[in-house]
């Protein structure tokens, strides 16, 4: 199955029509646990972006050497290797970024979205397309995390990016992990509603 999409279309697909969080509903547990502030969302998003791109490219390069029976262990191994490498490099050369991102990077090994993209895309397509697909999915994940983080930070701590906007804390509930599911659910409904509205206005049933 050859891929017939251009790089831009691959990125747009990751961000919009197949957004990992709002449309594919993958990697929910870690996403919901972490996205309490916009900054956390961005940090986790960047980390996922790198791991996704590197893993996609690696699997795409070695796709003909991977035995189909053991592809899942191989994917996990690839992801774990890249997570470790990024963790070590960050700790060694960017200690300030690591102080903020360190706790997030280690979580990524368990992310379903990365394994899923390797299985669905990278193990069938060429290296270049895998790179763009990984980039698109990574950006889509980051955007999703930022939006959820924004809602939760504003409603939970009354701030955006750490700056006090409201001056009070409306609902502490939104910082707790369970509230993440409510926010994601509401956002999904909102995105679906926009899609419906858009299609209706175009006259498509």
């Amino acid at each position, binding site marked *: 199955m050859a891929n017939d999409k251009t790089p831009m279309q691959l990125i747009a697909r990751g961000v919009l029509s197949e957004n990992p969080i709002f449309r594919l509903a993958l990697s929910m547990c870690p996403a919901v646990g972490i996205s309490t502030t916009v900054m*956390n969302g961005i940090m986790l998003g960047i980390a996922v972006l790198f791991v996704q791109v590197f893993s996609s490219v690696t699997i795409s390069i070695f796709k003909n050497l991977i035995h189909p029976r053991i592809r899942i*262990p191989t994917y996990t191994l690839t992801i774990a290797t890249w997570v470790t490498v990024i963790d*070590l490099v960050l*700790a060694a050369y960017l200690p300030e970024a690591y102080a903020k991102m360190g706790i997030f990077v280690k979580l990524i090994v368990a992310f379903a979205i990365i394994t899923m993209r390797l299985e669905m895309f990278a193990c069938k397509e060429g290296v270049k397309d895998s790179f763009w697909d990984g980039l698109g999915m990574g950006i889509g994940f980051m955007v999703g995390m930022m939006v959820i983080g924004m809602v939760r930070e504003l409603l939970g701590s009354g701030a955006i990016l750490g700056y006090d906007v409201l001056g009070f804390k409306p609902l*502490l509930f939104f910082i707790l992990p369970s509230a993440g599911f409510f926010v994601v659910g509401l956002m999904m409904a909102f995105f679906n509603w926009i899609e419906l509205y858009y299609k209706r206005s175009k006259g498509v049933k």
Partner: protein
Amino acid sequence: MKNIITIVIRLTVSCLLAATVMGICFIFTSGAKKHNEHVQEQRVMYELLGFKAGAEIPSSMALHEVYRYVVTAGGKQTIAYVVPQGGGKEGSLFVSINLDGTMAAQKELPLSEAQALDAKARLAAVTAAAEPGATIIFADQTIVVTKDGKRIAYILGGKFQGFKTFVNVMLAVDPAFTILGLDVLEHEEDPGLGAEIDQDYFKNQFKGKPFEALKNIDVLKAPIPDDYLKALNGKVGEEDVQKLREQYKDKAVYALTGATISTRAVADGVKGIVTKFAYRINVLDKILKEQQLTVSF
């Protein structure tokens, strides 16, 4: 059968490949990582003593490391300290104390302060000084800060159980065991909840707490009053900060919203570290005085 063999071989090869990549990466980065950790510890240490990054450190100030070992020999345990020798002598003292606080043994070690920094050389010297066949376990190290030969502070490190995993902290206390500063070096609490323990407004609550108040420290589940919160965040002048610190110094620590367990863990952990240290240093001081041993602090 053939399939199984191919699978085993390929999986082994991929594991070896992954291990090689990670191993090479580790070799290249471990030096820089250790260096970063060391730099961070030094920075935190000076910040706790009130020297912000870039501030000049007076030459009359000196840091002396005290190492504590647990020595077990013949079913008997003693606590051994390695302290730098005073009175112009280069070298360290090995002071061994029984569990009831009486002197067990003391010896001079041919180990200068700089040499004592190396864990291996220190352990070798302690092994030579202790009874033959004793099991020696390194317990912890404390830094005694002196200015013109007088003690001005102790720097203590410690680990305790947080809400999830260990919380690693560094503390500075003055000779009367009043807390001068607290910093959290490492923790894995929940972001947005327990992770707030590394925020200034939480850490600064411990600043200036006297030993007596710390012994019975409690956690208060209430929002921090506005003026106090501003002072903790350093948003008011130094005088007001001092005044509010004075006002709240004997009160309980305000719990973080939604993270009472983390707050209690830190309060109890800090209390444990300081009270244990106060007991130990008093015992050590008594022994040093009784035996008329001169040390550099």
